[in-house]
């Protein structure tokens, strides 16, 4: 057995705790966790948590201005943190469309989509998106979060059962909570575990998967999970937040990539990743759309997407549809980066997408590593427990079609150099 390698005094006190320690607290005062949290955060922030929510002072392109959360100084950094997978958000066509809509409509929709907030431009975008996804109908939501919450709770009820991958996004879990259905988690991407869990379930069943899992960058084992789901009479929802406009011959997503586009019942996605905007959508039959419009509270009781944003999204969708070379460029960049990481001995876990976790696997060091990397010119995000399992800390990278190979080579050099200095990679 390995000897214990640290003494208590060697570790900083803040490192003994994390967010999970401040979620539950018995007692009578709802505010009783504020003080302990504040005391902890006072130490945790300068020791690494400042790396969260750092302000940007430029467009989320391949290079960004970031205000350092510790020094408050602006830094010009190579950007591997933004979701702008196709580099569309700052394209001139997108900005021009948004500017024209601003002039025509003003800032916002000023109403719920069900009442006064639906504009012609929303209907046009829904039609265009339905055509792109090759579905009868499409419904817009104000955010990706509200799309999952609204759709799942519109469809499922108490007494029903929802099966979720254990790495499901919070919006999926919250949708299940709001539906008040029984929620059963199965092991990540594990159809055998799903099989075991489904064997005991009665009544209405929904299985929810994601095209690309956002912390590990691995794609869904869709054929196997779908086969189990269908055999047990369940419906399936696929959340393609990180995969729509990227995967498949037409860019429709991971379901299309596997040739299972018609087999999956419900298709959900977001506009904040590949299109570089904001919002969410659900595609399916017209009957489904009519029902969800009637019962999706997160949509019903929110203001509609701004027409300005919607105009920009229409232009972004046109680019994504008409420029397949962007996807080709993205996958070429991913292959290049994956090869370079392999050459340098950097572990990127099981990623097979544009989301790549650089595995640090050391909760005590992940912030120091991220800080060094940022100070050497690279912007990326550390991820640690409880967002990922203990000892599985990582730096999350988002690759873009807009990156050049020189950008990516520079990033690998910085990352591998720091990981070596910290004894994390050979």
């Amino acid at each position, binding site marked *: 057995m390995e000897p214990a390698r640290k003494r208590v005094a060697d570790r900083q006190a803040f490192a003994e705790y994390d967010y999970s320690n401040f979620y*539950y607290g018995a007692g009578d005062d709802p505010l009783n966790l504020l003080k302990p949290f504040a005391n902890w955060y006072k130490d945790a922030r300068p020791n690494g948590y400042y790396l969260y929510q750092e302000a940007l002072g430029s467009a989320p392109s391949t290079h960004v201005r970031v205000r350092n959360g510790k020094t408050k100084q602006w830094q010009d950094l190579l950007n591997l943190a933004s979701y702008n997978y196709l580099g569309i958000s700052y394209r001139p066509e997108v900005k021009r469309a948004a500017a024209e809509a601003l002039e025509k409509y003003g800032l916002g929709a000023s109403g719920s989509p069900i009442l006064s907030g639906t504009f012609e431009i929303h209907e046009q975008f829904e039609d265009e998106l339905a055509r792109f996804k090759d579905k009868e109908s499409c419904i817009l939501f104000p955010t990706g979060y509200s799309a999952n919450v609204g759709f799942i709770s519109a469809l499922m009820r108490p007494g029903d059962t929802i099966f979720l991958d254990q790495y499901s996004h919070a919006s999926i879990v919250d949708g299940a909570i709001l539906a008040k259905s029984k929620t059963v988690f199965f092991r990540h991407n594990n159809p055998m575990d799903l099989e075991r869990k489904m064997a005991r379930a009665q009544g209405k069943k929904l299985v929810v998967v994601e095209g690309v899992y956002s912390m590990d960058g691995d794609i869904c084992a869709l054929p196997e999970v779908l086969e189990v789901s269908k055999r047990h009479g369940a419906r399936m929802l696929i959340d393609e937040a990180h995969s729509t406009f990227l995967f498949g011959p037409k860019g429709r997503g991971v379901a299309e990539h596997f040739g299972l586009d018609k087999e999956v019942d419900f298709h959900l996605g977001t506009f904040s990743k590949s299109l570089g905007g904001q919002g969410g959508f659900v595609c399916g039959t017209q009957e489904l759309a009519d029902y969800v419009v009637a019962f999706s509270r997160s949509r019903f009781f929110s203001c509609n997407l701004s027409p300005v944003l919607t105009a920009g999204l229409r232009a972004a969708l046109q680019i994504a549809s008409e420029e397949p070379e962007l996807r080709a460029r993205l996958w070429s960049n991913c292959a290049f980066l994956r090869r370079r990481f392999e050459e340098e001995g950097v572990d990127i876990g099981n990623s097979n997408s544009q989301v790549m976790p650089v595995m640090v696997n050391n909760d005590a060091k992940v912030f120091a590593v991220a800080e060094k990397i940022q100070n050497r010119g690279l912007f990326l995000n550390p991820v640690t427990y409880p967002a990922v399992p*203990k000892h*599985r800390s990582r730096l999350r990278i988002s690759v873009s079609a807009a990156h050049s190979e020189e950008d990516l080579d520079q990033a690998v050099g910085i990352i591998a150099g720091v990981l070596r200095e910290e004894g994390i990679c050979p």
Partner: protein
Amino acid sequence: MSLTRYGYANAINGFFEFPTENARRVLPSGMEPVEVHHGSSVLAVTVFHFDESEVGEYGEVVYAVLVPPFVEDGRLPKGAFYPYQVATTTKAARQHAMERWHLPHWMDDVETELEPSADGKSLTARAKAEGTLALEMTITDHSWDEVSHLYQSFQQDDDGKYMCNILFEGEKSEHEEETGRIKLHDHPFNKGIMISEVFEQPFREMWMRKGHQLFDPLRTL
């Protein structure tokens, strides 16, 4: 007020997801379980080999549910648990724990063993009650740190409600690699647990060695 010390050679612990409705069935009224996911609470199974205590050397099996810690000034606990069944290998240990800590006990001696794997990387606990196997649990190691961690234990019986701060000090390995395993047998010892609903792999595994538990005096709530 004096602390009570229990030195252990080894102690292994697994956190297993099980349905919140099951957790609520074993908790007293008014006490809520901590949820790891919506609808999933935590069954914490711990097997100790105590080698130094007021009642000598003994083995102990603890079934507990994770609950919210009591927040007050001072050091924040790492977590809290409600032990709903404790079993010991000796009568003296059982009587001592019932009288001093109001812990609910399996009223017969059990047999426990902790068997290391050949490479020393895992420890398998077996517990027999009434002469037949009730529990097998394997926990694997990861990296070892010297720790001092505060936990809370809540107890409740016909006489009242209690809480105790417990400091765990010693060497500890903790991870979430899902490499351990539990087998709960169909046995009266496991009553109250819907065995088929307990995840067989722990989402968190802890192995503590060469350490001790320091109990503060029991507090009445």
